[in-house]
């Protein structure tokens, strides 16, 4: 299991390497979330986090996912700092014997990262900054698990 919290960009290859060399792995799912510019006016995104708590929170999620879905490997990478449109914000990878487990665990991790990992996003559009509001949906999503 690997947790990486960094300002620098990351390589997608880091995620697809999940479970490499483990003979029981039949399925590897990766997810990458990236900065969208739907309105065409997004200059950048600034992500703040809570060093220390971030790593602890993500490690706890990964441990929970590992137990619930028998993960053979799991990776979470999340960036902070300044990100430009098109850049990858974060990534998750899960490796399991079967597809259903790998998919469910990745989905679970994403739901938890959205509203239980201490990151806060701010968008800068046309020079104006605004904090991204949490969605009620994000909280509702946790009840699935």
């Amino acid at each position, binding site marked *: 299991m690997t947790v990486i919290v960094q300002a620098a960009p990351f390589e997608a290859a880091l995620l697809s390497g999940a479970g490499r060399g483990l003979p029981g792995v039949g399925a590897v799912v990766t997810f990458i*979330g990236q900065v969208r510019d739907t309105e065409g006016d997004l200059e950048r995104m600034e992500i*703040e*986090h*809570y060093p*220390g*708590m971030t790593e*602890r*929170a993500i490690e706890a999620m990964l441990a929970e996912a590992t137990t619930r879905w028998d993960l053979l490997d799991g990776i979470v990478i*999340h960036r902070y700092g300044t990100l430009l449109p098109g850049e990858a*914000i*974060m990534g998750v990878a899960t490796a399991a014997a079967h597809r259903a487990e790998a998919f469910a665990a990745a989905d679970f991790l*994403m739901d938890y*990262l*959205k*509203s*239980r*990992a*201490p*990151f*806060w*996003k*701010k968008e800068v559009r046309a020079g104006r900054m605004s*904090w*991204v*509001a*949490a969605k009620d949906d*994000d*909280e509702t999503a946790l009840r699935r698990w």
Partner: protein
Amino acid sequence: MIDILYFAWVRERIGLPKERVETEARTVGDLVAELSAREDRYAAAFADLDALRVALDQELADFDAPLAGVREVAFFPPMTGG
């Protein structure tokens, strides 16, 4: 002595990321009341507790949680990771 950390717009509203305070507050709620009484910027930041979250020693907690033994309290808006 307790460390208090503020993040995102809570940090911006209060105007600092971290402070160390001497407090007798028994619960998070007591601490919030104490800080809010200090200055308007605190009162403004803590005006709507539904819009806030709190972590005690880096674990999410409730506003009625006791502070006994806690070394680090953090206040922040709902998280927007992922």
